[in-house]
């Protein structure tokens, strides 16, 4: 397996799109202005781990962020947050793994890394860890 072949964020973006996620998904191409009211960002979190007993098996994490614009009052739009979050409940229901293009994605057991405001200007953010394996 070549290092250049490892692209978990691109594959996960396709998985989410195929599943019906309608929010804009950025994988390192997020603009500095003109962001939509709701968007998702995918970034690799940490390095890659190789299981040496199975050469070619690579494991790691993708950090998925769900960002929802704050209400005009400055408060969080928890209704929209929950609607978007429930999409992922369906995708990874009961610990289910999702396979695509040689990758297997699943929710990390302690999956919520952060939930609140103050990460991105004018948005509330949920950071969720998703594990991946590629063989």
């Amino acid at each position, binding site marked *: 397996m070549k290092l250049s072949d490892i692209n978990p964020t691109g594959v996960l973006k396709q998985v989410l799109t195929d599943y019906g996620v309608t929010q804009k998904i950025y994988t390192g191409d997020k603009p500095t202005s003109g962001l939509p009211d709701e968007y998702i960002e995918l970034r690799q979190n*940490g*390095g890659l781990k190789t299981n040496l007993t199975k050469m070619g098996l690579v494991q790691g994490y993708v950090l998925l962020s769900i960002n929802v614009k704050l209400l005009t009052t400055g408060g969080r739009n928890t209704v929209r947050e929950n609607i978007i979050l429930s999409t992922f409940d369906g995708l990874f229901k009961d610990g289910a793994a999702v396979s695509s293009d040689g990758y297997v994605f699943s929710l990390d057991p*302690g999956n919520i*890394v952060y939930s609140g405001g*103050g990460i*991105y200007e004018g948005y509330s953010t949920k950071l969720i860890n998703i594990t991946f394996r590629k063989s």
Partner: protein
Amino acid sequence: MAQIDFKEFYRDIDMLTENILVDTAEAVIRYIESSDVIPVDTHNLKDSTGVGVYRNGTLKKFVMPRKAKEPRIINWVAIWGEDMIDHVLNTGMSNYGNGDHIVLFSSMPYAEDVDSSGRNSGFFTDMLSTEFELILDEIVKLYGKKS
């Protein structure tokens, strides 16, 4: 069969360790929130402090006390937590690639100045980090209690 049992045992220990790390990070933020331990003039220093939990370079938990509504303006530049989360992710592999780490962050550039001189000298590197260790000890003791 024995191998399967061992894997479950290893997973349980791993989750227990992670719970201790996360509980400690949250306790540190509660400590910061519940008192005036952070030297405050405008509360921005307190607001910009965060705690990250890393396991082998992967960010597993991030806790911040603030719910910021306005950026901090320094030299006409607006500074938000975004600067910190980028930094937190980027330093994960380079600085905390091996083992378990709990890391105190501040996105405010002047935090280093506050720590290095003046009446609050050593606040982050001495006073708060000592408190950090005490909190970790307390959390570990809680997990060690038999019910």
